[in-house]
């Protein structure tokens, strides 16, 4: 039983559970204490000093983001003295921050800018001095501009504690403090897996996704290019947030939008997901029944997870599904299957994709197998935030567009394809089809609650023809260690494998919580976005990938059979051990 305590905030009496911070308690009585370094998704670092408040009877000021409200406290959140100190602190931060808002990627969407505007700060009271630090654009996915960094510490926390990647750390001290990989190396040489969680949590323009909008605009304006596009599952349920809608599914409007932008064919990554399931479920069937390769089978559709594995868990290479991601699969199919069927010269095809992810920007040139069509399978990746900017640039009234359909040849998907966007979705989709492949029977109930939800590690069992299939699902790379340690332990001690099938998504929540998604993500938002995805699935007539008529047609006309020669050539990839630091 959690004790409750009573206290006053701005004269208002309230009762909250013991341990509630002053910041949270204030919100319950409609008081918004200004913050800067605090992100609702992360624990407080107490760095900026803007959330300070007074407690009657004490001369000290408290940081409301991390101080629990205590019995009998009498808090003042706003008075001339407190506001003046907050202003001074903001002005101090601004004196060490570049003044080029107008040219910054975060213009109009920056937390520091908003705070400055809210406080009505119109002067530079203190002498301006900027950090003399170069940008790091080495990852080709996420750009770091240390000049704009306000040292809030969110990126370091996310990278170290949540993602367990440790690509970022604080270097030096005092006024010379900066964010960089340990050893002062470039991000591309560091453990960085390009997941973009840093960019998703950054309050300013210090960490920003690499901008590919210009590339896409140019292609759209190039008369010699045949532009096609695919959208990922997670994008449809989050793009509405830029227009004030949370958890709303904008699939059909997105199709309409992309055509208005000038794309000549609009596909859906969920279709690629269906293909992935066909291949991967077959893989699983083979490993389970014919023991061609070892179990557990580990999903491979997340490029950050692949990068992480190649760097830190090279002993798992054999367990990885050789299947490419739905993203890449759709890319290669568009320049082969689609091009052939519609008699389009694949050299002229420009394939763009809209992803919730920054890692996909790295994936498209990961190795030469991303060029299996004979050309770069995917030419440009836009993340959700970039598409929002393009919508505004194009002057389209997005939320009121009429609904349209996709180009069904590579756009019509089963429910199993769209649930890839949520953690556990790949696993659930795979079971639906694997069950059919192994037993020949369709499942009566296709929903698996055991793999859904935002618990970091989900372990459950599924009955397939009397055999108990043990499954593990992890999201957020910090949760990987637990699962893989169990696997390693079983290997060393010759014990039975703890799992048959493992799904890992690098981002917390799965792709809905991706590094390229709209800002200010919280678990609440992740759940809402996932719910909308599962709703999309339940609304579908066709729930399983193998039932999708367009999938059947693809295999009949083009691929032959799953894991066949054509599939191996176009849809599968290899992994390379690139160890960095031992684990």
């Amino acid at each position: 039983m959690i004790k409750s305590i009573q206290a006053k905030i701005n004269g208002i009496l309230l009762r909250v559970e013991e341990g509630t911070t002053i910041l949270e308690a204030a919100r319950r009585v409609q008081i918004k204490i200004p913050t800067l370094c605090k992100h609702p998704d992360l624990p407080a670092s107490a760095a900026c000093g803007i959330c300070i408040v007074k407690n009657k009877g004490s001369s000290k000021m408290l940081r409301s983001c991390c101080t629990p409200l205590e019995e009998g406290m009498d808090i003042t959140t706003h008075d001339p003295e407190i506001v003046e100190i907050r202003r001074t602190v903001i002005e101090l931060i601004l004196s060490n921050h570049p003044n080029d808002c107008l040219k910054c990627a975060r213009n109009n969407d920056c937390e520091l800018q908003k705070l400055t505007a809210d406080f009505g700060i119109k002067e530079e009271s203190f002498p301006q001095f900027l950090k003399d630090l170069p940008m790091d654009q080495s990852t080709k996915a996420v750009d770091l501009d240390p000049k704009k960094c306000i040292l809030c510490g969110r990126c370091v926390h996310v990278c170290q504690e949540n993602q367990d990647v440790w690509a970022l750390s604080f270097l030096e001290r005092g006024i010379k403090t900066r964010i960089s990989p340990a050893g002062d190396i470039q991000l591309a040489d560091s453990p960085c897996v390009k997941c973009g969680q840093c960019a998703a949590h950054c309050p300013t323009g210090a960490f920003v996704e690499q901008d590919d909008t210009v590339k896409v605009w140019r292609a759209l304006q190039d008369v010699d290019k045949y532009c096609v596009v695919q959208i990922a599952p997670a994008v449809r349920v989050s793009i509405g947030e830029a227009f004030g809608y949370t958890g709303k599914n904008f699939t059909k409007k997105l199709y309409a939008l992309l055509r208005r932008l000038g794309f000549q064919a609009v596909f859906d990554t969920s279709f690629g997901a269906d293909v992935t399931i066909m291949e991967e479920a077959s893989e699983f069937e083979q490993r389970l029944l014919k023991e061609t390769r070892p179990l557990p089978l580990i999903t491979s559709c997340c490029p950050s997870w692949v990068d992480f594995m190649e760097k830190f868990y090279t002993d798992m290479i054999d367990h990885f599904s050789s299947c490419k991601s739905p993203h890449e699969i759709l890319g290669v199919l568009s320049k082969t299957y689609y091009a052939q069927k519609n008699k389009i010269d694949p050299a002229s095809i420009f394939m763009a994709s809209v992803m919730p992810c920054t890692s996909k920007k790295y994936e498209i040139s990961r190795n030469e197998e991303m060029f299996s069509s004979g050309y770069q399978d995917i030419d440009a990746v836009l993340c959700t935030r970039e598409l929002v900017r393009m919508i505004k640039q194009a002057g389209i009234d997005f939320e009121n567009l009429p609904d349209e359909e996709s180009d069904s040849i590579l756009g019509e998907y089963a429910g199993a394809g769209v649930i890839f966007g949520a953690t556990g979705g790949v696993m659930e989709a795979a079971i639906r089809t694997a069950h059919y492949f192994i037993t020949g029977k369709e499942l009566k109930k296709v929903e698996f609650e055991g793999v859904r939800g935002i618990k970091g590690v989900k372990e459950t069992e599924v009955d397939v023809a009397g055999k108990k299939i043990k499954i593990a699902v992890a999201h957020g790379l910090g949760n990987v260690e637990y699962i893989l340690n169990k696997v390693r332990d079983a290997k060393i001690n010759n014990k039975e494998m703890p799992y048959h099938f493992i799904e890992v998504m690098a981002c917390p929540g799965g792709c809905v919580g991706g590094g390229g998604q709209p800002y200010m993500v919280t678990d609440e938002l992740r759940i809402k976005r996932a719910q909308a995805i599962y709703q999309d699935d339940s609304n579908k007539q066709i729930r399983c990938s193998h039932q999708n008529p367009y999938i059947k047609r693809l295999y009949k006309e083009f691929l032959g059979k799953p894991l066949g020669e054509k599939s191996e050539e176009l849809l599968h990839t290899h992994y390379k051990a690139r160890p960095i630091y031992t684990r």
Partner: protein
Amino acid sequence: MYEKTILIKDTDTKREDLTRQAYTQILDFLRHNDQHSRIQVVRVADIGLYDKGLVIKILPEQITYANVKEDDLKRIADAISFNKGRVEDLVYKPKSKQERLVLKNCGRIDPESIDDYIACGGYLGLKQAIELKEDKVIEEIKTSGIRGRGGAGYPTWMKWNFAREVASDQKFVICNADEGDPGAYMDRSILEGDPHAVLEGLIIAAFAVGASKGYFYVRAEYPLAVERINKAIKQAYDCGLLGQNILGSSFGLDLEIRLGAGAFVCGEETALISSIEGKRGTPHPRPPYPSVKGLWGKPTVINNVETLANIPQILLKGGAWFAKIGTATSKGTKVFAVTGKVKNSGLVEIAMGATLREIVMDICGGTLTGKPIKAVQTGGPSGGVIPEHLLDTPVDYENLQKLGSIMGSGGMIVMDDDDCMVDIPKFYLGFCVEESCGKCSPCRIGGFQMLGYLKKITEGAGNINDIAQLKRISYAMQKASLCGLGQTASNPVLSTLKYFEKEYIEHIENKHCPAGKCSHLVTYSVIEEKCKRCGLCFTNCPVSAITGDKEKGYSVIQEKCIKCGKCFEVCKFRAINKK
């Protein structure tokens, strides 16, 4: 063997030294009266009194005569030779004396010998603590009223009690030996001179709190202290005073040394804990306080070296004994490291409540240079200046705070007219900016901006609005910084502004430094009367701003002078005026 000894020293610095004269006169008298083989006369270098004229001390009776005139010498010699008692009208009673409690063994025992320490009553405090049991031990500490000597002055018993009350499978004690204040070396001397006292205090703390593991966090810049603590810990293990079943009880403690790595901020409790955990040494928000949730999330008691060195005697002689010393709110003694423009710089241990004047003048001999004392700086980079007219303030935690300074860890720096009250805060602020961990914006950026303003002012580019800006940033740093470093970094500035704002104005409006310290704002000129026309200044001036020759003499062309100070440096006759 001599029955008596007469010590002589003339402590009047303003006239010629009469020590030898008095010595000869007394010796003559003794020889004349055939007393010279039973009474020894010695000239001493220092007799412990200052500015009290000719001083004579008689041993073994411990009689001191001051302001002795030539005519008095015969009376004194007579009284000593023929056992005529004391010459009452000349007897001098020294007012306050040092009370060496913490430092009682420093300078007496061999710090590398546990036998020496035990022979002088060592580890009896620990024995007493184990007999009393944990609750009674904390009671004694509470009765004593001892407050943390690291600077914050938090009641020690409360810290121990909080930790004791939390149920936990593991508790820690840490000795904070990361003494970082510039000019403070009390902790170093205690660790080098009497490491076992600190060790005993730490073991008692661990016992009272229920800790089974402890750390000494020592700054790496104290290699001798580290060596001696190492030896002490090893000796304690060998004697069964560490490890399991200490002194036959069920209590056990393991101790380890951890070295600092050059970060002043790691003297702050939560940053220190981070450092021991192997993380970046930055402070963390409190609550939770270390006593409740500290090292690796367990209850942790962190105490300063001097605090711990007091503990054994409190246990041995009782808390009530300790509470009799000092003032109502600040009990016991404090060790001060008195340095700067003072004659006798060194460590002074005195009961709380002694005045600054007593410490600086009576014990430390007053001004070094003969120039009057301008102010005394206390508390290191977190403290402020106390101007001369307030030196009669009794020293305790509350009084110093009221004056705009703090007790701090005990550093006391004496300043005279040659010390600039804008340059001093610039130095301290520069230190804080260098040592800031960089985590919170108010300290990281605020300190840097304040330093910028001070640099401007000392270089002659200040404007009157700068003072308002300094105050504004100071206030924000005080209220919004995450830890004590940022919260107190502006104290030297605010304190000098409070008492010496005129000097700031002088720098800003007249572009002049009254102390002659700020090199950009001093005027160099040739003092004709002293000038020997050697021409050294002329040949050494890097910008040929000195004109003249060996016949007519030399002078400085002010417009060309870049105020580098080279002429002042090379002149052998002190003929360059720098003001």
